[in-house]
């Protein structure tokens, strides 16, 4: 059952302005679950649908219907607010057909005010089957691709349990180039058995491929993954740190700005949708397991939808798939703001804290100044940002803002 969040009890608390609103759409299926992945993704069942790596057309259509119904159910929460960006993530959204994406985006445009220059990103797998759909995706109005390359090294791809290979990756990038002037390549480093040279080779290849954005993630062995239970031999902390240093230097030399912990962009090519998260903006989240954060004058809420695709579809059929809805307490707000905003190299304008949390700066200024004294943060009267040391030890910095 849906739980209703009550307004924040503090009567003198309130937001004077609502933040920008983005839309996240989750697509929960993958051909195969990767051993490092802790996202809400589910392998297609063999024998039933998708035994050839394709999604059953009926299921696909049902899911798109559910997404549209889901969005409609959210509308009362965001009346009149324009949507600034859309992100279609997964799972593997590119398993869906271009026609389905077209239908979905048309339905969205009909229901919310989508800004004309809105960034619309689709996560895509660099498989042959998906790459052939890129043209159709572009026609549907998608204007940015995020391609899950991970590595250009066949041995590493195999170790990561990926189903594509180096050649497929190159072909996907080539096709992406033809249809998109803006695309991101997702890469991972500190892979099993990886050397510094190999890690740099991947980065160089990504730069040469002409991408406008690179996300370089340190492979993390997340709980509830196969890698966590059977950890592969990954580079030690020192080598991984060396890789990070070298990767940052290489991308900087190629004109990429390191604007967030793991994100690098060509000028004006920052991921606008993700920036909204990091600036503690609002987002609707529709689809199985999607999370949302929505601000109101008297409260800020988080929602989570049912994670299992079958549960989600069934609940949507009954009228709503929100599993939990909670108001963020005033005690938690400063930490949640920092968790996001301090990931940005540029940090945040001090008045943004008050605007987004409705709390006076005095709530955090003591911790901020303490961190400044320790060389983790630097600030002037208008702005605060993490130092090099603060970016490296972001966890240590963030712990300070956790409520006791």
């Amino acid at each position, binding site marked *: 059952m849906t739980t209703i969040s009550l307004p924040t009890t503090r009567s003198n608390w309130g937001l004077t302005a609502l933040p920008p609103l983005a839309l996240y759409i989750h697509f929960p299926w993958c051909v195969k679950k990767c051993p490092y992945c802790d996202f809400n993704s589910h392998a297609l069942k063999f024998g039933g649908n998708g035994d050839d790596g394709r999604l059953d057309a009926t299921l696909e259509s049902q899911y798109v219907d559910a997404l549209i119904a889901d969005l409609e159910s959210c509308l009362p929460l965001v009346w009149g607010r324009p949507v600034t960006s859309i992100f279609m993530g997964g799972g593997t959204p590119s398993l869906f057909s271009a026609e389905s994406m077209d239908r979905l985006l048309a339905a969205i445009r009909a229901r919310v005010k989508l800004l004309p220059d809105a960034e619309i990103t689709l996560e895509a797998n660099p498989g042959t089957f998906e790459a052939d759909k890129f043209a159709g995706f572009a026609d549907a109005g998608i204007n940015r691709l995020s391609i899950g390359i991970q590595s250009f090294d066949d041995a590493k791809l195999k170790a990561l349990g990926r189903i594509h290979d180096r050649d497929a990756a190159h072909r996907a990038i080539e096709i992406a180039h033809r249809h998109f002037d803006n695309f991101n390549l997702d890469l991972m480093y500190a892979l099993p058995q990886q050397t510094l040279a190999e890690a740099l080779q991947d980065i160089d290849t990504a730069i040469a491929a002409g991408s406008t954005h690179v996300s370089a993630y340190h492979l993390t062995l997340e709980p509830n993954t196969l890698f966590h239970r059977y950890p592969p031999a990954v580079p030690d902390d020192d080598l991984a740190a060396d890789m990070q240093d070298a990767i940052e230097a290489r991308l900087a030399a190629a004109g990429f700005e390191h604007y967030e912990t793991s994100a690098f962009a060509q000028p004006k090519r920052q991921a606008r949708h993700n920036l909204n998260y990091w600036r503690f903006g609002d987002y609707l989240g529709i689809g199985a397991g999607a*999370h949302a954060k929505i601000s109101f004058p008297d409260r800020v809420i988080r929602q989570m939808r049912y994670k299992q695709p079958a549960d989600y579809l069934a609940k949507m059929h009954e009228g709503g798939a929100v599993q939990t809805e909670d108001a963020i307490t005033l005690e938690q707000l400063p930490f949640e703001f920092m968790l996001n905003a301090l990931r940005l190299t540029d940090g945040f304008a001090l008045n943004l804290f008050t605007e987004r949390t409705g709390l006076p700066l005095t709530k955090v200024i003591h911790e901020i100044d303490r961190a400044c004294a320790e060389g983790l943060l630097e600030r002037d009267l208008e702005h605060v940002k993490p130092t090099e040391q603060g970016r490296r030890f*972001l966890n240590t910095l963030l712990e300070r803002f956790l409520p006791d």
Partner: protein
Amino acid sequence: MDHIRNFSIIAHIDHGKSTLADRFIQFCGGLEMREMSEQVLDSMDIEKERGITIKAQTAALQYKARDGKVYNLNLIDTPGHVDFSYEVSRSLSACEGALLVVDASQGVEAQTVANCYTAIELGVEVRPVLNKIDLPAAEPERVAQEIEDIIGIEAADAVRASAKSGIGIEDILEEVISKIPPPKGDVNAPLKALIVDSWFDNYVGVVMLVRVVDGEVRPKEKLQFMATKAQHLCEQVGVFTPKSVQRDVLRAGEVGFIIAGIKELASAKVGDTITTVKNPAAEALPGFKDVKSQVFAGLYPVESHDYESLRDSLTKLKLNDAALAFEPEVSQALGFGFRCGFLGLLHLEIVQERLEREFDMDLITTAPTVVYELVLKDGTVTHIENPSKLPEQTKFEEIREPIITATILVPQDYVGAVMTLCNQKRGAQRNMQYMGRQVMLTYDMPMAEVVMDFFDKLKSVSRGYASLDYEFKEFQAADLVKLDVLVNGDKVDALSLIVHRSTSVYRGRELVSKMRELIPRQMYDVAVQAAIGGTIIARENVKAMRKDVLAKCYGGDITRKKKLLEKQKAGKKRMKQVGNVEIPQEAFLAILQVSDK
């Protein structure tokens, strides 16, 4: 008095002492079935978990024997660790007999040997019982022979039993009646009652477990405590079945409790003799010792604002633990805390664990030390309980360390290994005596070497067969030096140690290398150095961590990220911030993990 039998059970851990006690209580109807829990006599959680008995407990049982008469059996459960050997000897001296319970498949183990000899020395009748005879691996004949060989008591006709399956329980009780003598004592003589144990009860104050040797004791009598010279009015007497049951009188030969409105455990010391003011006994029972702390360590709250609650917790613990001593002390590195005195390392661990569990304290414990005697230049003698307080070498004439006489019983096969160990620990052999297949070794050894890990080492080199008993002998001049530890160049007083010069360099090196392993990598390099006098003898670096950051964080599920950070923060809370270095609890005790050369 002919119908009274006072006895205890001597057994190795896991040989079934507590289960056997449970069976006796059940057989004699001391508790209803619903009141029975496993090992009813071990009441503290730590006792049940570790399988050791810390406090003595008793059960007065009514047994209708095969001869038709009803006997009063008093079972006294005794503690079983070298730290508590004084308590063991007091418990045993309250008995006329003891059952030596031996696992019929495993045979005689060391722990039982020491207690057995204590019992025999005190003139207690020891009767063997072969337990667990229903196990397929049981070899009662061989084990009986072993008992005769090692301990030297008749064991051919030892009762065969299984406490778990209830076999032979009645036979054991019959054995108790027929083989263990009834107590001797004169009901008409002046009162002499031995305090076997005492503890604090929130409602009635101090409860004393006593064995009445002569005379009788009734409520309303004015009692005289012979060692402490204190006087208290007797309020209640009674017995434990093991539930407490009030009686009108306790007579010579009986075991029971006395409550006399005493507020402090210190005035009801174990081993003291109670008599009456009106008709006092001429002399006290033998064997009383004032228990002194042997091992000292600093206890500090991780969060300095917990200092007051640590004081309260220690005060509460002390209500029930007369051997625990504490006084406030200040450390530059750790702030306000307490210097605490313990009977031994096990006692320290128990106190530490109880503070953490029962009182929810986060603690830093400094490395345990013994007391040293210091002769100053002007000839005055002082005592040092805290290594950091040891002045420079030029400021004193002589430093003396406590020497103990250790008596070790070990089967012949392990004599060589045990002697090597004693030599490593700077022991000087005083005697060596063959007793059947056992050898009794007597060594004079520095107490500092014995209290740390000697007992564990002894067990491991003798496969658990050696047993140890020791008593303080004297303070002896020794070539001792203070080993200081510096973290990022600053001396951390709480890490100072007093060590023998001959092993100081080795220990210093091992200590810093152990600390390097125990201190987690942090934002900055951490240098750990060991110094003697002004000279650095060892240095290790804990290299700075390079980064600590979550690779991914999007709008999605932030609760997991938050939990991760909360866990990380909680982990740091268990560390003590010294300067800008976070030092975990274990690093303060790193010396305990330093092995010998």
